[in-house]
């Protein structure tokens, strides 16, 4: 029963991801005085790509063909680990938050390898930049997560959420820092402004788009869908770790219903926040990104240190 629920939750996760992307786009259009597309447009795009015949560039090897499946499978699996509407599901036990970061890295590695597989300048450029950004963002993310792990004495996401729920609303400086760090990382890792621009097709500025330039058809659909899931994953992580209230702690229909409603609300709000920052800021030069990410890293480490200095000491005495 638990396992069925876990699978259903994962399906809901991957099913709702394009909706979140559609909602983000819609809010952004509104803010920029443009006419928004339908909320369901991302689904239509995926369906259209699914039906198209994909194009395989000549120098491609099996890595190019396999990468979309690996990326999608790794992302879906990550979605299965992260509690969306209910805690204490059995899938949360299979992997903890460090494994989650590892899975992001696995998906990214294959995407980067696929980018280099064709041997074009774009692929290499996108790959190099993606790995550079990731190698700064990943430690920042781990540090933010460790802050939580050390407070909650667990790296298991479900247990950590339980811990926050049990202790109630306490203002912890460490959590504030970690939240800031994680939000900055989320923006960088999902390729949003000011680090990357998901809408650009100007060669010199793109990172993510440059890597997947050669993809088309169902492969592109998988990659797009995976990046939508990734966006939602970061949203859910932020929402459920720092503000877990409303998440279902038992599996009764009412609490699950409340859980679904609450997470939808939280994600919708987070999307508005993201869009506000995207509208307010411009994209950075590539060599400014390091400062941005170092700041995120610093925030996360500060969070960890403030936990150790301010909070852990209190527990002992």
């Amino acid at each position: 029963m638990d396992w069925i629920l876990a699978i259903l939750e994962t399906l809901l996760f991957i099913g709702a991801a394009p909706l979140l992307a559609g909602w983000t786009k819609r809010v952004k259009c509104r803010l920029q005085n443009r006419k928004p597309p339908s909320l369901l447009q991302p689904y239509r795009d995926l369906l259209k790509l699914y039906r198209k015949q994909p194009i395989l560039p000549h120098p491609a090897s099996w890595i190019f063909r396999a990468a979309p499946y690996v990326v999608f499978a790794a992302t879906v699996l990550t979605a299965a680990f992260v509690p969306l509407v209910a805690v204490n599901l059995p899938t949360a036990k299979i992997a903890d938050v460090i494994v989650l970061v590892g899975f992001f890295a696995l998906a990214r590695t294959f995407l980067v390898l696929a980018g280099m597989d064709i041997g074009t300048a774009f692929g290499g450029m996108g790959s190099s930049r993606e790995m550079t950004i990731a190698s700064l963002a990943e430690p920042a993310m781990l540090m933010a997560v460790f802050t939580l792990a050390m407070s909650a004495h667990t790296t298991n996401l479900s247990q950590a959420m339980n811990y926050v729920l049990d202790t109630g609303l306490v203002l912890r400086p460490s959590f504030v820092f970690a939240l800031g760090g994680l939000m900055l990382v989320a923006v960088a890792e999902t390729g949003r402004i000011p680090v990357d621009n998901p809408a650009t097709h100007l060669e010199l500025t793109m990172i993510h788009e440059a890597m997947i330039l050669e993809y088309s058809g169902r492969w592109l659909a998988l990659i797009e869908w995976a990046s939508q899931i990734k966006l939602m994953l970061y949203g859910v992580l932020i929402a459920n770790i720092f503000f877990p209230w409303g998440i279902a702690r038992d599996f009764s229909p009412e609490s699950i219903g409340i859980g679904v409603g609450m997470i939808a609300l939280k994600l919708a709000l987070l999307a508005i926040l993201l869009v506000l920052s995207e509208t307010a800021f411009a994209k950075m030069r590539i060599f400014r990104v390091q400062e941005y990410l170092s700041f995120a890293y610093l925030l996360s480490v500060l969070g960890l240190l403030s936990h150790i200095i301010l909070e852990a000491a209190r527990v002992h005495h």
Partner: protein
Amino acid sequence: MSLFLAYLAVLAALLSAVTAAIDGRSPWIDAFIAKGLGRWPQQLARVRHSLAAEDYAARHRQLLFTLLGGSGIAALLAGIGALASGAPLVDTLPFGLPWLSWHTRLDPLSGFFLCVLGLPLIAVALYGPGYVREFEHGKHSLTTLGLTTGMFVAGMELVLLADDALLFMIAWELMSVASYFLVAFQHEHAANRRAAFLYLLMAEVGAIAIILAYGVLAGFGGGLTFDALRCAALSPLWASIAFVLALTGFGMKAGLVPLHAWLPEAHPVAPSHISALMSGVMLKIAVYGFIRFAFDLLDQILWQWGILVLVIGSASAVLGILYALQQQNLKRLLAYSSVENIGIVFTALGLSLIFLSNGDTALGTLGLVGGLLHCLNHALFKSLLFLGAGAILHQTHEQSLENMGGLIHRMPKLANVFLVGTLSIAALPPLNGFVSEWLIFQTALQAGSIQSGVLRSLIPTASAVLALTSALAATCFVKVYGVAFLGLPRSGHIAHAKEVGHRGMLAGPALLAACCVLIGILPAPLINSLGNLTHQLTGADLGNISTLGWLWLTPVAPEVASYAPALVVIGILAVGWLCYHLLYRRTGLEPRRAEPWDCGFGGLPARMQYTSGAFSMPIRRIFQPAFEVQETLEETREGPAGTRVTVLRYRFQVLDKAWLGLYEPAGRGVLHLARWVGRLQTGNIRTYLGYSFFTLIFLLWVIS
């Protein structure tokens, strides 16, 4: 039984050395055979016939490596036996000094490291016959190679078996000196001779530090056997002196920053299967020495030592990988990455020391297990990658990443095996590199249990560095795989490369790749088998590691952290297969082959690809202070007043700061000192007579 197998391993390695030294075609061998088989003319004729046969060289080579492989299998079995039984086996050999015969001992710790040695050795034995074939008709005799390889392996095995400081040092020197000849094997290049000399120098300086460390213990313990050393009651000051000496000596061999600069010079210039053994195994022998000294022989553990090891380990990890990222020579890159991995191992050991000194045995054990597991993992994937790099070198005579590309189309099998190594060393789930780093992170995250605020904040900082290291390692090895195997070939050699012909040259790396996958997916049984080892060193084991079953890892407690790699693999395969089925099989849309997008200009030559140097340029720029970058831009101008630039030549070189900051000043200092001492040598006979006279007077005064 296990000890017998261990002796057998040493014997097989020595026998391989002897076999290499004997050329079956030399006249005295012929005379020897004629004498021995004189009574059986038929057999004599047969032996002579086989010695004269065309494939004699191939058989001789095969025999050498079969003996080495036998040594590897025996070492592996002995190690497994020692790990399983737990009781140490001791023995005394009738060699050595009159009052000190050689003591040997096989306990779980040496057993574990025998396994670490055995697996790569088996792979090397499979790989070697094909790889050394090209040396056969070259300038260098296989005799030297085979002789020193056998002695090198025997030396490493004896280090693991030694139970007294004397045998330990003899074996240690055998290992160091034999590997010097291996580094100097291709001695026609001045750079190789220089690297070999530097290697020998550093090895001997390190050996002196180790001897002094043993000397301190022996001074208090009264005896050179390890049992006597264990009984030495040291004051904290003397214990610290011994510890620092041991850390210097073993750290020098293991390649810890800032003593690492010899390592990336020496390891890559040896033949590739030897590089695999040096990076994959010999560094682990140094780690073994350190663990034996710090965890077993010393009677106390101070938290300051833990901090020292933690800081040095973290620095090695992050600097090693930063330098690795900037290398264009594949084997050099792999050598720098060894510095990084040894740094990770020492980070884990530092954590373990801190927790143990704090009295937290369970967490100390967890850190130790993380470090040991990373030793094994690194031995597996680094040997794999060196053997792979050797196969590329063998097929294309190319070492520079800048000239590679597109090898996945030309060497598809090697490319698949290499991919496993790449993903493992990049610490990606669900492979083995991730498991050990995960355990180390889990150890670091328990820092909250320590009372001291300084330690509590230092450990998370170290884990921050570790996180940065693992992210950079992923970048580094993605670069290696992407530049070498993917894209278009960047040179003619590579474009005409062919798949490795010799089956063993693929089987060796494939064996290691299989081990990487197996440990990655099912780590719990392996970690459980380390229980005897940790009992021996820390007096505890990881009882909680498989609370949920053998598919699971739960290092501290199930509610603190759990990871089930096998379930993860099943999940990923299921989702991947489902997608493939739904998207490809159901639509039946075959992809259309086309040219890649070239902005409509037509034609994308290989030179337009990102190079290895370009790929790591952002990192070079971001971490500028860590490097000494020398860039030059040469312009050739023509036309009126030199306005038209016709040729642009850009060069860059990344230098190791340890060279400039430590090695070169030390070298200058030694030269200076030598010149100063040289003033004694006037060349005047009266001065020398004066020296003798005053020495005599002094001695007479001392005696009377």
